[in-house]
C-alpha cells in the first residue's frame, strides 16, 4: 500500500521511525514534496482561519499527497515525553484535517502517547499495524527493527551533530543514512561562530518556511546548534532551572538548551528564536526566553516571527545585521 506521510510537523522528529516501520511491514512510503508556494497556498485555503502557520502548511502537504496515496498517515500525537504534551493542535490534528479537506482517502490516525510511560511507543506501532491489517507477530518484528534503528539514528544525530535538514527533494533521513551507516566523525572547524537556533523543528528545518535560515547561517561560516543535536541530558539539566516544569516538549527543549548553554558558560556567539506567528506555546516560551536573556545580556539575541506574509528581504536584512553584530563581537 502507498502510505502518504506529510513532510510537515512531526515529520522532522519521527520520520525515520515511521519509514522503517512501514517499509518493514511491506508498504511504500510516499513523502509529500518539500514545502513550496502551492503547498502554502493550499494550506491557507483549506485550514481554519485562525490556525498557526505550521498547521496551515500541514494542510497543504495533505493536499499535495491526495492523488498519490492509498492511505494518509496523520497520527494524533499526544505526548512524546512522559508527563509532557506537544500542543493542543497536535491533539486535534486529524480532526482538523478531516473537517477541513474534502474527499480524503482513508486516514491512519493512531494515537502516539508516552505520557505515562516511554515504552508506550509500541502501542502506537501496534495500532497502526492493526489498522493496516497485519498480524501482531509481524508488527512486533517491524517495531523492533524500526525502534532499534530509530534510537541509534537519534544517537547518531546527536553525536555527529546532524541537523534533520532536507536537501532538495531528498529527505534528511535518506541523505543522512548512508553517512549514518558509515559512522564517520564529522570534523568541526574550531574557529567558527556558534549560534544556537531555537524553534519548533517544523519551522527551523523547513527550508521554505524558514527561508533557508540554516543554510544562510552555514554559508556565513556559522555553526548552527539546535536542540535536536544537544544531548537529552543536557537539555534536561538546563530545564531544571525553571521554577515549574514546562509541559510542552518543544518548549522545554528550547528553554532547556538555552539555560544549559548560558549556565555552563559554553562559547555561544548568538541565539536565534524562530517563532510562529499565533503559536500558543511560543508566546509563553519566547517571553520567558527573552526575559532570561535580557537580564543577563551576555549573548546577542534575535527573535524572528514568521507568518504567511513574511518577506524574504526584510528577513535577510535582519539576519545580516545580526551576523554583523556577532562577528564584530568575536573580533573584539
Amino acid at each position, binding site marked *: 500500500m502507498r502510505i502518504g506521510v506529510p513532510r510537515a510537523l512531526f515529520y522532522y522528529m519521527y520520520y525515520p521511525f515511521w519509514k522503517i516501520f512501514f517499509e518493514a511491514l511491506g508498504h511504500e512510503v510516499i513523502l509529500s514534496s518539500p514545502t513550496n508556494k502551492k503547498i502554502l497556498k493550499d494550506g491557507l485555503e483549506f*485550514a*481554519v482561519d*485562525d*490556525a*498557526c502557520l505550521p498547521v496551515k502548511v500541514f494542510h497543504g502537504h495533505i493536499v499535495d499527497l491526495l492523488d498519490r496515496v492509498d492511505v494518509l498517515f496523520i497520527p*494524533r500525537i*499526544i505526548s512524546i515525553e512522559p*508527563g*509532557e*504534551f*506537544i*500542543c*493542543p*493542535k497536535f*491533539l*486535534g490534528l486529524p*480532526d*482538523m484535517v*478531516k*473537517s*477541513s479537506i474534502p474527499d480524503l482517502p482513508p486516514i491512519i490516525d493512531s*494515537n502516539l502517547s508516552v505520557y505515562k510511560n516511554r515504552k508506550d511507543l509500541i502501542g502506537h506501532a501496534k495500532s497502526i499495524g492493526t489498522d493496516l491489517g497485519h498480524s501482531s507477530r509481524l508488527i512486533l518484528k517491524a517495531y523492533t527493527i524500526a525502534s532499534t534503528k530509530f534510537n541509534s539514528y537519534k544517537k547518531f544525530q546527536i553525536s555527529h551533530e546532524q541537523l534533520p535538514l532536507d536537501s532538495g527533494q531528498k529527505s534528511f533521513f535518506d541523505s543522512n543514512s548512508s553517512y549514518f551507516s558509515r559512522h564517520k566523525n564529522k570534523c568541526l572547524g574550531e574557529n567558527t561562530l556558534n549560534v544556537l537556533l531555537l524553534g519548533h523543528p517544523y519551522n527551523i528545518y523547513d527550508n521554505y518556511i524558514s527561508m533557508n535560515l540554516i543554510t544562510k547561517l552555514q554559508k556565513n561560516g556559522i555553526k548552527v546548534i539546535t536542540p535536536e543535536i544537544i544531548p537529552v541530558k543536557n537539555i534536561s539539566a538546563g530545564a531544571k532551572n*525553571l*521554577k*515549574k516544569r*514546562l*509541559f*510542552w516538549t518543544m518548549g522545554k527543549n528550547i528553554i532547556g538548551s538555552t539555560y544549559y548553554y548560558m549556565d555552563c558558560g559554553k562559547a555561544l556567539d548568538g541565539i536565534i528564536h524562530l517563532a510562529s*506567528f*499565533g*503559536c*500558543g*506555546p*511560543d*508566546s*509563553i516560551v*519566547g*517571553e*520567558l526566553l527573552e*526575559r532570561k536573556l535580557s*537580564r543577563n545580556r551576555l549573548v546577542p539575541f534575535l527573535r524572528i*516571527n514568521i507568518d504567511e506574509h513574511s518577506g524574504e528581504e526584510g528577513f535577510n536584512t535582519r539576519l545580516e545585521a545580526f551576523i554583523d553584530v556577532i562577528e564584530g563581537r568575536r573580533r573584539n
Partner: protein
Amino acid sequence: MKVTFPHMGNLYIPLRTFFENLGAEVVVPPLSSKRTLEIGCKYSPEFACLPLKVTLGNFIEALEMGADTIVMAGGVGPCRFGYYAEVQREILKDLGYDFDMIVLEPPQGHFWDLIKKFKYITNKKSFKEIYLAGKLAWKKIILLDRLEKMVNRIRAVELEKGKTDKAYKKALNLISNARDEQELAFARQQIEKEISSIKKAKERNLLKVGLVGEIYTLLEPFVNFNIEKQLGELGVLVERSIYISQWVRENLLPSFMKSKEPEVLAKLAEPYIPCFVGGHGRESVAQIVSYAKQGFDGVIHLLPLTCMPEIVAKSVLPMVSKIHSIPVMTLVLDEHSAETGLRTRLEAFIDLIRERKEEEEFGVLSWD
C-alpha cells in the same frame, strides 16, 4: 499579608469570602476595565492569549492598591493557562514589584498540597477552619450559578426594561455580604422572591441561544462585552454552558468530588473530536450538539484570538453545524475587539435565526 487574585466573572465573591473567613486581608482588584486591559497588554507578550493579559492587569492594579500576595491557579497543560503564573511572575518581577505568588496547582491526588498552601496563606489555620470557610464559599458559588441562570431566563422576557439587572445587582450584594450559612440561606430566599416578582411578557416565539467556548471569555463579562445581557436585551433567552462551579471543580477540588457529567457530555463530541484537546475545545463541540438536541435556535462560540483548543473546535464547527442543522456563530475576541462591531454581528445573527425559526414554523403552512 494582603491577598489578591485575578478576576473571572463573579469568582471574586466566593474567593473573598474564603480568604476573609480565614482571617486574611483581601485586596479585590478593581473589576476588569479598559485600564486593566491597557496595562495588561502593555506588559504582556503580544501573542499571549487575552486572559493572560487581563489577569496581569488585575494583578498590577491590586499591587498598586497594596496587595503583596497573589493567589493564582496553575495547571499541567497542554494549554497555556498552566504556565500563566510563571510568566506573570517574571513580568511583575521585572517591573519591580515586591510580592509573593502562590500557585494552586490542580490537585491530581495532591489535595494535601493545596491545603498546605491555604494554611500558609492564612497563617496556619486548622483544617477544620479551612473546611468551613471553603464550604461557605462553595455554597456561594452554587447560589451564584443559580442566580446567573435565573437572570438569563428572565431578562429576555421582562416587561419593565432593566428590572432584572437591578435585581441581579442587588442579589450579588446580598450574596457577597452574607457572613455565614444562615445569612446566605436568607439571602437566597430574598433573591428568589425578588426575581420571581419580576413581571414577564408572554412571549410565544422566544429564541433560545446557547453560549459555548473558552471558559474565561464566557465567564468574564468585561471581555465578552456582557454578551448575556446584550442578548437578553435583544429578547433572546441565553444559556451558558460553563459556570464557576465547574471551573472550581476542575481546578481546585480533588478528583473524587468531580462530577461525571462532563465525561458523559464529551461523548457527544466523539464523531468530531474524539479526544481531549486541552481547555474546553472538545466540550464546546459537545455542548453545541447538546443544544441542538434540546432544540435551541442557535449557538454562539466565543474564544480569545490564538486560543489553541478552541481553534481545534472551530475547525470542526462547520460540520457540526451542518449535521445537527444548528446555526453557529464564532466570535474571536482580543484587545482590539470593539463593542459596536460585536453588537452588529449579534444583531445579524439573531435576525438570521429568527427568520429561520419563522420559516420553519410557517413554512409548513404555506402552499404557494
